[in-house]
């Protein structure tokens, strides 16, 4: 039976869908069979992030209404065959909690990992997504507003029977961390009192890839940071990407000044 991990944040715009997509790619490229589920019903974007928007014919509500089989609604990624996406274009009222849970349950039988891209906010959609999951990853950025929302989500998650609740700090600016101008990854973890399993640097490559709808370059800092999170999920390792490394030493001095 596959593990179901919900990727949530509370606050919108922290990079949750991008993290979900890239994490799915990293797990799939490590050999796992992965299903990405867009639970942001009606405001879905995971198809766009993965660059498969034109291949989506059915979605989760079509499965619920019996208009197609689950296998027909799954979009297999054109370049990564063990990565599939279940999209959601319907209005929020179109998918019931029970139907969503049934879909996740069916996916568990065919995939090693099911990553649910949770909608922002803490409304019905949040609870629908979280109630199906075994584990949760809270994505935050090192700014007070998103840490505060992550804390609220953490409190809400304590009401669910989740085996693990862990944090990914996204968009870390290593140069500013070194100067003490912004919060570091450790600061965020200590405030939230949750284990940080991912430190993902701000990377222009993410913006470039999102613009043209292709998966992040495998040599990018973003992808390498996400690979460490995938390794944590699959093997239980605990290495964090060092977002400050690029800005240390003689070369780092020039890079800091160049930004």
């Amino acid at each position, binding site marked *: 039976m596959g593990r179901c991990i919900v990727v949530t944040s509370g606050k919108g715009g922290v990079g949750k869908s991008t993290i979900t997509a890239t994490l799915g790619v990293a797990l799939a490229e490590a050999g796992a069979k992965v299903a990405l589920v867009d639970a942001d019903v009606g405001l879905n974007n995971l198809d766009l992030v993965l660059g498969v928007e034109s291949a989506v014919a059915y979605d989760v509500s079509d499965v619920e209404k019996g208009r197609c089989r689950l296998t027909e609604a799954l979009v297999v990624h054109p370049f990564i065959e063990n990565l599939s996406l279940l999209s959601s274009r319907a209005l929020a009222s179109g998918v019931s909690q029970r139907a969503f849970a049934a879909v996740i349950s069916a996916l568990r039988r065919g995939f090693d990992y099911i990553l649910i891209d949770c909608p922002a906010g803490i409304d019905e959609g949040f609870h629908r997504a979280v109630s199906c999951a075994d584990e949760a990853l809270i994505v935050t950025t090192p700014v*007070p507003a998103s840490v505060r929302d992550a*804390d609220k989500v953490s409190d809400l998650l304590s009401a669910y029977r989740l085996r693990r609740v862990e944090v990914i700090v996204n968009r870390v600016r290593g140069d500013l961390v070194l100067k*003490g*101008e*912004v*919060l570091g990854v450790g*600061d965020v973890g200590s*405030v939230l009192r949750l284990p940080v399993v991912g430190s993902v640097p701000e990377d222009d490559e993410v913006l470039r890839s999102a613009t043209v709808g292709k998966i992040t370059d495998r040599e990018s800092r973003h992808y390498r940071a996400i690979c460490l999170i995938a390794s944590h999920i699959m093997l239980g390792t605990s290495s964090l990407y060092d977002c400050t490394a690029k800005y240390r030493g003689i070369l780092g001095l020039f890079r800091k000044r160049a930004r």
Partner: protein
Amino acid sequence: MRNAAVGIERIKKVLLQDKTGAQEDVIAVLRSDLYDVLDSYFEVDPQSLRAEVAVDSFGGYEVKISARAFRVRKVGHTG
């Protein structure tokens, strides 16, 4: 003070406000229950009964209770 340190203090402060604010209903019930218990042993001044909840640096709750009583009630012995 560096920006990062200022940021941490701001977050800690706002989280503390969020968490203690959410406890207000609980504190009202707690005060009522405390009064009932204390009133069995003391003649408590109702205006003096305080129950305050704060969040400590470890994320736990620090509960401070104080009250002033006019006199001790005579508690009957049994057996």
